């Protein structure tokens, strides 16, 4: 359970997030949508207890800093220093080695996590030689190896092909049965089947609720400042044309 009340985050002298209030049940799948600079990553980092905030956040009934070991974080792939020569096993075990040390249990958990994302045969492979999609799956395995109750993913589909995207979504779909997943993305369309709630964020909360209720042309125009056509069919809706993310 995640509860956010009147959350405001001030960052380097400007307001990054303003007066957010929402709550999320456990387990569930939340997608955070918003343009560049909307505060999506800031919100994830606030959940992780890395950024000071005003207001109230309760994650499984506790302050963010107190539940860090219950949260798994998968950062954006382009923030990783991919020049470091690491084997896949090293990448997956890295957080466990820091917290637990080199033990049999760590190796076992890392292997199981890699198996869970279909990457076990790459155990000894050079991480740098993997494709972008394979690297994303290794990062997902690394996040899962810690066995977190909630998983926070920051744009896991950036620079990945369709096959990878669908493979990761399939894994996430399976995981949502017992874990809360919070995913930042620019394209909600591939996630319509597994998404429980959507948060439309542009520093302020533009909308929060079920996808079918929140993804409206009016909300999307408020979110992106331009008209975004929506296709609706029965209880599903799709945005037409993705939000293309260009990093400055």
């Amino acid at each position, binding site marked *: 359970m995640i509860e956010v009340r009147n959350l405001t985050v001030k960052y380097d002298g400007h307001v990054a997030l303003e007066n957010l209030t929402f709550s999320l049940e456990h387990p569930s799948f939340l997608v955070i949508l918003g343009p560049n600079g909307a505060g999506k990553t800031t919100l994830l980092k606030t959940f992780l207890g*890395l950024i000071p905030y005003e207001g109230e956040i309760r994650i499984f009934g506790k302050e963010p800093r107190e539940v*860090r070991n219950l949260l798994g974080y998968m950062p954006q792939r382009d923030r990783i220093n991919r*020049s470091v*020569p*690491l084997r896949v096993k090293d990448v997956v075990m*890295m957080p466990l080695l820091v917290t637990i040390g080199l033990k049999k249990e760590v190796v076992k958990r890392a292997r199981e996590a890699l198996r869970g994302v279909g990457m076990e045969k790459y155990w000894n492979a050079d991480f740098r030689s993997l494709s972008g999609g394979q690297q994303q799956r290794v990062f997902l395995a690394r996040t899962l190896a810690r066995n977190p109750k909630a998983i926070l993913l920051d744009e896991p589909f950036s620079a990945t092909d369709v096959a990878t995207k669908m493979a990761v979504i399939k894994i996430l779909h399976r995981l949502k049965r017992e874990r809360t997943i919070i995913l930042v993305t620019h394209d909600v369309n591939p996630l319509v089947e597994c998404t429980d709630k959507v948060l439309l964020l542009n520093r302020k909360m533009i909308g929060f609720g079920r996808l079918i209720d929140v993804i409206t042309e009016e909300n999307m125009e408020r979110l992106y400042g331009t008209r975004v056509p929506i296709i609706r069919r029965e209880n599903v809706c799709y945005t037409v044309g993705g939000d293309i993310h260009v990093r400055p």
Partner: protein
Amino acid sequence: MFALSIWVLRGIIAVILISLVASTAGTFTVFKGATFFVSGIAHAVLAGAAFGIFITLYFFPFPEFLMTIFFAIFFALAIGYATHRSENVDVSVGIMFAFSMSLAVLFLAMIKEYASVAWGLIIGDLLLLSQEDVLWMSIAVLLILLLFLIFRRKMLFSIFDPEGAEAMGVNPYLYETLLYLLVGIGVVVIMKGVGAILVYALLIIPAAAGKRLSKGVLATGLFALLFSLLSGFGGIALSVLSGITPSALAGLIATFIYFLSYLKRGTVKVP
């Protein structure tokens, strides 16, 4: 003959010490992509040496090596802080580079005829190390190895994935600064042997060549150790035979090894 042997023996010990630094702190510096930092610290060490001589001349005796360590630590911390603030290691190093070099020139002007002692750090000489030099180098390397062994996993996590490390409660700024500290002390150690200009040759080039050939962190470190030992011992051997300063020869061998690493097929192309 005996006199030559003791100098050579000290040179051999120095090469082993230098190689240990290259395989640990040097390797992580290459991973971090902060190799320019090494040059920045080398100039700070020159300023430290000049200041040490200045203090000894006009106030009280102060070990020159200790002063160079203080300067290296101060500038490593300053660069770490500036990097944290501006998020650009090149700019931070550039500023500190200019500051330390200005101080060096200032102190060298003040110590006049003794300036040649500090200038000796520019070239260095593996075969002119005193007993005291080797003792200080050994203490410094032991400190580097101890800190490296304790904190290597957190440093590596911070280098590879600072955001992921932070999310796990590992402060990447702290461990990045620790790496700079280790490298700073390492530069002092290596400069004694090979000088400011060639400090790069034994700290960075072996690790860079090792990284090209290996798929893992440990293998990179072992390659760096091997290449650094080969360069250092080769430099000493050729120096004994030719009379040319060993640091220059060690630098040439290290560079040659690096170019040889290009011959290996299937080296990993880094994005």
